[in-house]
């Protein structure tokens, strides 16, 4: 089994910031907007390098989404930056009408997604954003797993024509994917080969799935771990192919089970190959204050819980 290790931990939002810096230097049409969170979103380098292409909109996210939509008229490629909660729930109608329905080429870049935002608590920990965004026709939804993947995704979405929701996080997490990876929107990445169970994970849960697979391997269970960075459009082929071999699946995400990746997989399987599935996700609840590690444990979003779910799903085969 391929064994993933890491030498350093970095936050995925820094991957976004560094990707944006690189993009800014090579493409004059890239513009960036931020709603008073430039430091948190790691957008300071872009701001410093391109003051004429950076727009500080203040604490006014609805206006930011509208301005971003307008900037596309004239050929700009706007990247908006704020926390995931303020990137989605707060501005759903602005995204729906002015960006998605209007078909505008806006990249909605959302940090501090999910419960690992930590101590700020439930007001800021959005666990519904993937659902809201994937329901919008024409919206591409991406949730990256580490610094390298986030940087690669940030650069890749600039070349995709159409609205994109790019979701990443606050805490420092292991860096384990290739720094020179080619990021293909809509294409999952098979991390490990396995025969007994398919683990389909997104975002911070990819590392947890890999950790789980190591323990499972020692216990004689071989898990195929698929890194699904693009939740919409979903890479159906990679999942169906794996499941046809393993016969069961555990989905894992830092999101409510309602509306998340797990539900997209259930739909795919029920239409094509009904298969036992277990869900690693929050259980229709709000979050709370705590450290990211404490919260991941309390809400069952860690490798220990993945191992438990694998054992139950295998019994259902």
């Amino acid at each position, binding site marked *: 089994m391929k064994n993933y290790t890491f030498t350093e931990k970095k936050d995925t939002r820094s991957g976004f910031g560094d990707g944006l810096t690189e993009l800014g230097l090579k493409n004059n049409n890239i513009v960036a907007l931020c709603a008073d969170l430039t430091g948190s979103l790691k957008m300071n380098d872009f701001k410093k390098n391109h003051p004429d292409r950076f727009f500080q*909109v203040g604490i*006014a996210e*609805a*206006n*930011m989404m509208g301005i971003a939509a307008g900037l596309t*008229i*004239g050929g700009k490629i706007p990247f908006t930056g704020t926390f995931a909660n303020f990137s989605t729930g707060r501005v759903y109608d602005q995204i729906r*009408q002015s960006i998605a*329905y*209007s078909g505008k080429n806006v990249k909605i870049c959302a940090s501090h997604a999910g419960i690992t935002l930590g101590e700020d608590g439930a007001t800021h920990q959005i666990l519904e954003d993937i659902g809201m965004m994937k329901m919008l026709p024409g919206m591409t939804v991406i949730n990256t797993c580490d610094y390298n993947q986030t940087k690669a995704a940030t650069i890749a979405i600039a070349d995709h024509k159409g609205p994109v929701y790019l979701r990443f996080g606050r805490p420092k997490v292991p860096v384990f994917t290739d720094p020179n990876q080619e990021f293909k929107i809509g294409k999952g990445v098979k991390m490990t080969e396995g025969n007994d169970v398919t683990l389909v994970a997104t975002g911070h849960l990819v590392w947890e799935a890999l950790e789980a697979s190591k323990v499972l391997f020692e216990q004689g269970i071989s898990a195929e771990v698929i890194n699904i960075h693009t939740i919409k459009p979903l890479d159906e082929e990679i999942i169906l192919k794996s499941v046809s071999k393993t016969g069961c699946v555990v989905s894992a995400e830092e999101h409510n089970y309602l509306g998340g990746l797990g539900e997209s997989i259930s739909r795919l399987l029920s239409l094509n190959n009904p298969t036992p599935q277990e869900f690693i996700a929050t259980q229709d609840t709000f979050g709370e204050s705590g450290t990211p590690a404490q919260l991941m444990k309390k809400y069952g979003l860690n490798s220990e819980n993945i191992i438990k779910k694998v054992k139950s799903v295998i019994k259902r085969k």
Partner: protein
Amino acid sequence: MQELEKLNNITTQTRRDILRMVHKVNSGHPGGSLGCAEFLVTLFNSVMKRNDDFSMDGINEDIFFLSNGHISPVFYSVLARCGYFDIDELNTFRLINSRLQGHPTTHEGLPGVRIASGSLGQGLSVAIGASLSKKINNDDNLVYCLMGDGELQEGQNWEAIMYAAAKNVDNIIATIDLNGQQIDGSTDDVIKLGNLRTKFESFGWDVIEIENGNNISDIFNGLEKAKSKTYLGKPVCILLKTIMGNGVDFMMHTHEWHGKAPNDEQLEIGLKQNPETLGDY
């Protein structure tokens, strides 16, 4: 004044288009559409610098955004009669498989439309974004935006109004259709808008008032004055005092016709008051 006669003729025809469109599908918004007919006819035909072919990016031309999308009948009529699409397409307003949706959209590719609107309060932000895009592109043409007065009750507008002044977005002219009416009654009854001149000025905008927003000469002069205020460091607002339902006597001075279509008899009366000038679609 030949130009004035021409604009008057287009306006009369546009009123007929509006009445016939909403009558045919027994739905739509004639009141606000009629109130803004003179303004949009003047803006599109005599004020805006427009390229012959429509392109979404609108480079090297003035561009327009309709924020109060429910007055789509007047928008569609003006666009069609400016040549953006065939006037016969006005026949498809609100019908299934039409590009002329109840509220304007880019989704069906209708030339002349650059943003979907209908959910109120979003157009000004978009127009500001397009103004910023023009500045980056060194395109010194203007961005126009039309909004309803009731629409100012949406908070996003005030985010946008604050932003445009703070960031010196001075290549935009935002017009407020000040007809004093909204669905539930007069704006005074629903939520008093207060002194809009003072409000806009205190936010840092230049304000032009057009006292008779249904008079083409006044509109033209007001728009020219507004243009002369652009590129001086401040965004420009026009307070356009209009009469909802203007040009059809029983529709005037009331909110009753905000979103109601005339019946057969009422249509006939309205059309009689506005005889055909350029030919019906």
